[in-house]
């Protein structure tokens, strides 16, 4: 475990670990920054973060991208060694997830209070905003922690919410927010609008890497992301309150304070979204910004979103796997691990022990009714406990030989699905498929699975020995 106090400390660690690339040549806001981040995403699973130090049109702007955008960066973000295997990152993430809640450390001042703009607020002046994909409606804040409280229970910390919601900058102090009914913030909006009141909002940009992961995790309504971050980092989470009483990370680079305007909707989007397709346009709520606070030399952290894989897929990797696993495993302790890495869990792979014939199919169906599965899981592959769901070679072997399509593949028609899934027909409805790739056991006796190959004796010992020797090979 490691508790980074802010983004800067994490960037220093990335630099020391050779996971940060600094571009000192001048770049344009469009298309250079998004193009470079997109290119990095095409270069494999160990790419560094990228920092732009000279941006056309600004005298001193700095932009970072791809901060979470590789497995080494993800491991470092959760305080593990950069070469930690994916499966080990999963088990450690889940172990810490069970430690909820951690505690909060409230302090009075923070570096983000150094510069305050509360007159003639203009977001473009202080944040180097840019377009990511050419069909986007504008410049989006797509890696921000949005903080709100429940107006019906204002002082209840556990109902405070920190979420990463897509924000479209529509004017110098005007922001559109995508808030779909499944989001926790939608409940805060509903309560404020039923009262006819604006909802106070704080937006933190450029935070240490853990709270962004927690804010992207679908937790229970009464679980506070800051307390989960504290549990995950093994240290109280340090916060500062805004004048309206919203808790903001001490380490943020920028904090925007404003109001979500009661009972107003206006066009938002499109935005190139996680499935690799544009979102379309909707009438979404609007936020007016009254105050911008920032460090003297702020760093703007953004995420490129495009056709997978991109940094976004690392941001919503373990944060999607862990809650599904915890929910399944609490009812079925046979479940060993969950891989929901693909397109925010549109495909989910579960490895499980099987109690009796037909058990794996029940597990597959249960995935569809988990909190996340309700709106995402569309194809579920269930594999045996000795198949690593994070190793696609092993998963494809199981699908290749354990599946007899007539008895192991079935489709459940017309289930609810995220509006952004382009396969929906009509929008919001899709058929879902379970693939049972476990070995049939009694009373489901099918196939000829009596003589499965094992490894030669001594393979495990050789694995350790050769691993050390290969590591020592001259580079």
């Amino acid at each position: 475990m490691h508790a980074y106090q802010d983004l800067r400390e994490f960037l220093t660690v990335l630099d020391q670990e050779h996971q940060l690339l600094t571009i000192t040549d001048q770049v344009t806001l469009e298309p250079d920054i998004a193009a470079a981040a997109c290119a990095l995403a095409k270069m494999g699973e160990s790419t560094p973060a990228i920092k732009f130090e000279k941006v056309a049109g600004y005298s001193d702007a700095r932009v970072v991208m791809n901060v979470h955008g590789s497995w080494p960066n993800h491991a470092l973000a959760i305080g593990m060694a950069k070469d930690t295997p994916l499966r080990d990152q999963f088990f450690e993430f889940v172990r810490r997830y069970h430690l909820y809640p951690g505690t909060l450390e409230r302090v009075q001042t923070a570096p983000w209070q150094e510069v305050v703009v509360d007159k003639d607020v203009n977001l473009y002046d202080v944040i180097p905003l840019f377009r990511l994909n050419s069909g986007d409606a504008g410049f989006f804040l797509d890696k921000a922690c949005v903080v709100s409280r429940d107006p019906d229970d204002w002082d209840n910390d556990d109902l405070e919410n920190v979420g990463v919601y897509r924000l479209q900058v529509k004017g110098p102090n005007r922001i559109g927010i995508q808030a779909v009914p499944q989001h926790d913030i939608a409940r805060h909006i509903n309560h404020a609008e039923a009262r006819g009141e604006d909802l106070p909002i704080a937006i933190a940009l450029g935070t240490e890497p853990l709270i962004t992961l927690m804010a992207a995790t679908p937790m229970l309504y009464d679980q506070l992301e800051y307390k989960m971050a504290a549990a995950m980092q093994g240290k109280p989470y340090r916060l500062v309150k805004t004048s309206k009483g919203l808790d903001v990370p001490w380490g943020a680079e920028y904090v925007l304070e404003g109001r979500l305007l009661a009972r107003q909707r206006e066009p938002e989007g499109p935005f190139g979204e996680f499935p690799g397709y544009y979102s379309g346009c909707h009438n979404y709520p609007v936020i007016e910004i009254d105050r911008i606070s920032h460090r003297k030399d702020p760093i703007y952290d953004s995420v490129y979103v495009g056709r997978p894989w991109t940094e976004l897929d690392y941001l919503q990797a373990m944060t999607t796997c862990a809650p599904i696993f915890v929910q399944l495993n609490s009812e079925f302790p046979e479940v060993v691990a969950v891989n929901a890495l693909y397109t925010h869990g549109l495909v989910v792979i579960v490895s499980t022990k099987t109690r009796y014939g037909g058990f794996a199919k029940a597990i597959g169906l249960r995935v569809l009714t988990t909190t996340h599965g309700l709106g995402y899981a569309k194809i579920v592959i269930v594999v045996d406990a000795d198949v690593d769901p994070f190793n696609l070679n092993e998963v494809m072997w199981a699908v290749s030989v354990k599946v007899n399509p007539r008895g192991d593949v079935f489709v459940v028609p017309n289930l609810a699905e995220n509006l952004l899934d382009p396969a929906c027909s009509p929008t919001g409805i899709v058929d879902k498929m379970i693939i049972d790739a476990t070995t049939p056991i009694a009373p489901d006796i099918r196939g000829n699975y009596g003589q499965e190959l094992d490894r030669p004796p001594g393979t495990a010992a050789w694995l350790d020995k050769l691993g050390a020797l290969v590591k020592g090979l001259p580079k």
Partner: protein
Amino acid sequence: MSAATTDQPLPICPRCRSATTEIHSTSPVPGVWTVFGCPTCHYVWRSTEPEQNTNPDKYPEVFRLNPESLSELPVSPVIPPLRPPPAKS
């Protein structure tokens, strides 16, 4: 491509062709770029972007919007009924 300056006439919106647009910002280093916005459809663009983002004739048809149909876009989340005010004691 060149940066627009504030003394030029304002462009029409590339996305919805509204004639009423605004300057949202000019680059802190003067003369590099200008950001324009459309208060009708809320499209935002920078003067230095490629023509497909700045020129109404080159703007991709698939993303164009008609100002008259903006109110027909799906609304989310739904606006709830106002609660009755609390009874006075």
